């Protein structure tokens, strides 16, 4: 490509300043929207995954092989026999912070005037404290080792008028499907700013759960916390090897598999954002097609002259495409410069949310501060997408200019 061609293209960009600024601005907006959108969606889901790990799933879970397929019904007949033995066997898992056995089963809680469906979580409180953060903010006491004591969520407590020390009725079916009802009391009320969980999940000592649900020495799952999520593949592999040797009836599930529905939701949300980004790109594409076409019409005489003095069709075409390329590159750079402070703020400081008020009614747990996550790759991808759309947008007017009849072009120019 000759230097003159680049020079002419650049000169054309700066010749009609108003039109070029409009073109650049559309690219600047597109690149900013793509960067911000990707960053916020990634940040939002990263926060949700972190909260799910902290509040519900831990990093890894162990189940009976037949349990995951029917997990939603929370059955008591596909269990881990002798969970203490399994816990001892996986004690050497690399980077493990804690592991604990649990029993999960649906039930009903009542203040004797009103009843509500809940999920009973039989837990080992001492170990669970090291695994989940759900127990960090408790009014009253955490659970003792045994006894008919319940840790319930604030939303449930508000609905049923529970306070620490309140009496309640707890109903469920045992492992043999026999109905069971017991008197219990509220040992504490936990607050996590996530209504859906606060209403539905109650915790009881695992020893009590075993007695209440007639479970002997069994558990429905083992939950494991690692130092961080990055160690999951290594720890999962180790546990798989341990289970394959001594416990072939058990299976390992990591937090990603455990939150598969959330991943689907994230994909869907990212998909709908991509549609929005496409709309912006189309807008940029359309504007550049439009302005370049105008430019071709305005410069008919110039094109005719260039063709008359020997410039080839390909040269003319390349000149206009280069013009589109420069406009989009400048637009992208402008977009990067304009959005950089916002993206920096959102990545470093984030949006501060009052989780207890705003996020508590959502279906997914949010964090107090919602940060965007933008990688260098996001900057490059958003820029490349915009430049491609700019070049494509310039192609049709460029072809139109190149295909112009020289005599007619000169005639129009003389007029």
């Amino acid at each position, binding site marked *: 490509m000759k230097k003159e061609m680049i020079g002419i293209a650049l000169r054309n960009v700066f010749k009609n300043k108003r039109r070029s600024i409009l073109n650049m601005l559309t690219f600047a907006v597109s690149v900013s929207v793509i960067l911000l959108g990707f960053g916020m969606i990634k940040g939002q889901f990263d926060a949700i995954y972190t909260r799910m790990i902290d509040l519900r799933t831990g990093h890894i879970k162990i189940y009976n092989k037949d349990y995951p397929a029917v997990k939603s*019904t929370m059955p008591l007949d596909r269990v881990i026999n002798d969970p203490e033995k399994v816990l001892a066997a996986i004690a050497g898992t690399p980077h493990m912070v804690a592991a604990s056995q649990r029993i999960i089963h649906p039930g*009903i809680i*009542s203040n*004797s*005037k*009103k*009843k509500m469906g809940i999920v009973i979580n039989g837990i080992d409180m001492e170990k669970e404290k090291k695994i989940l953060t759900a127990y960090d903010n408790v009014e009253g006491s955490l659970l003792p080792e045994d006894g008919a004591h319940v840790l319930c969520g604030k939303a449930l407590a508000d609905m049923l008028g529970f306070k620490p020390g309140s009496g309640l*009725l707890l*109903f469920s*079916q*045992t492992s*043999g*499907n*026999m*109905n*069971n*009802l*017991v*008197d219990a009391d509220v040992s504490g009320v936990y607050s996590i700013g996530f209504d859906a969980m606060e209403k539905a999940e109650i915790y009881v000592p695992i020893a009590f759960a075993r007695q*209440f649900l*007639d479970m002997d020495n069994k558990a429905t799952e083992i939950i494991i916390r690692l130092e961080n999520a990055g160690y999951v593949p290594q720890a999962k592999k180790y546990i798989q090897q341990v289970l394959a040797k001594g416990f072939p009836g058990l299976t390992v599930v990591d937090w990603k598999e455990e939150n598969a529905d959330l991943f689907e939701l994230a994909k869907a949300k990212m998909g709908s954002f991509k549609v929005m980004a496409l709309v912006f790109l189309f807008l940029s594409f359309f504007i550049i097609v439009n302005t370049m076409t105008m430019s071709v019409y305005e410069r008919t005489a110039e094109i005719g002259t260039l063709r008359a003095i020997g410039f080839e069709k390909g040269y003319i075409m390349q000149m206009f495409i280069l013009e589109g390329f420069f406009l989009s590159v400048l637009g992208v750079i402008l977009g990067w410069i304009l959005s950089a402070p916002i993206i920096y703020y959102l990545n470093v400081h984030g949006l501060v949310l009052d989780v207890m008020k705003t996020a508590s009614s959502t279906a997914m747990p949010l964090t107090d501060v919602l940060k965007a996550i933008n990688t260098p790759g996001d900057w490059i991808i958003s820029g490349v997408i915009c430049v491609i759309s700019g070049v494509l947008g310039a192609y049709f007017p460029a072809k139109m200019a190149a295909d112009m009849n020289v005599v007619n072009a000169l005639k129009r120019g003389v007029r």
Partner: protein
Amino acid sequence: MKKIAFLTAGLIAVFCASVLALDAKYTKAYAEDLLKTVDKSLYPAVYKSVITMTTVRAGRNPLSNTFEVLSKGADKSLMKITAPARDKGKKILKNGDNLWMFMPDISRPIRLSANQSFMGSTFSNEDLASSGWEDNYTAEITKQKDTLILLTLKAKKNDVAYARIDMWLDDTTKIPTEMTYYGLSGKAIKKMYMSNIQKIAGIMRPIDMKMDDLIEEGSYTQVKLESMEALESLPEYTFDPTQMGR
């Protein structure tokens, strides 16, 4: 003073003993036979009946349904909803330990859990589907009050719905008047009252039943037996889940 207290205590003890003392005939064998008779006094072997069911829960509008019931033995029954119009056409089938619900909008029947509440009522699906107490419970007469006796049923195994059922029944009619259902812990969960004894389908049966939910004060389900007809037999396909749409 001491003498008066002693006398009062003695009188109470004599009174209680006279009220609670059991006749010699109320043996274990008598109780077991009685349980079989009770099963039969409530439902004929094969029958067709119409019942209305009204559920009342605190703070909610009462829920009322009318059903046509076809039943054969202890383990097969088909309930068709005939009213209200919005639920008309829904069917609930029990065959052995399995339960299905058919809704006209959905072509295939849906499996139900025995533990689930039946149409939002105080009854669980299992409560309605189960009879045949003699198979699942041992019986013993533990109290007597005139002609009323308390039949205490204890679960033979741990895979039945209730650990214990206390059934007050009239020894002359062999019809239960009150039943209390207990969970594994020994705490009462539900209480059923049977009243309005009338001759229907050949013998005297309770027409009205009321099941109180002891977990939620003031919640109950009232069942009224509108009609009952003993049948010779019912074809097997009546209880085939693949035929529920017909």
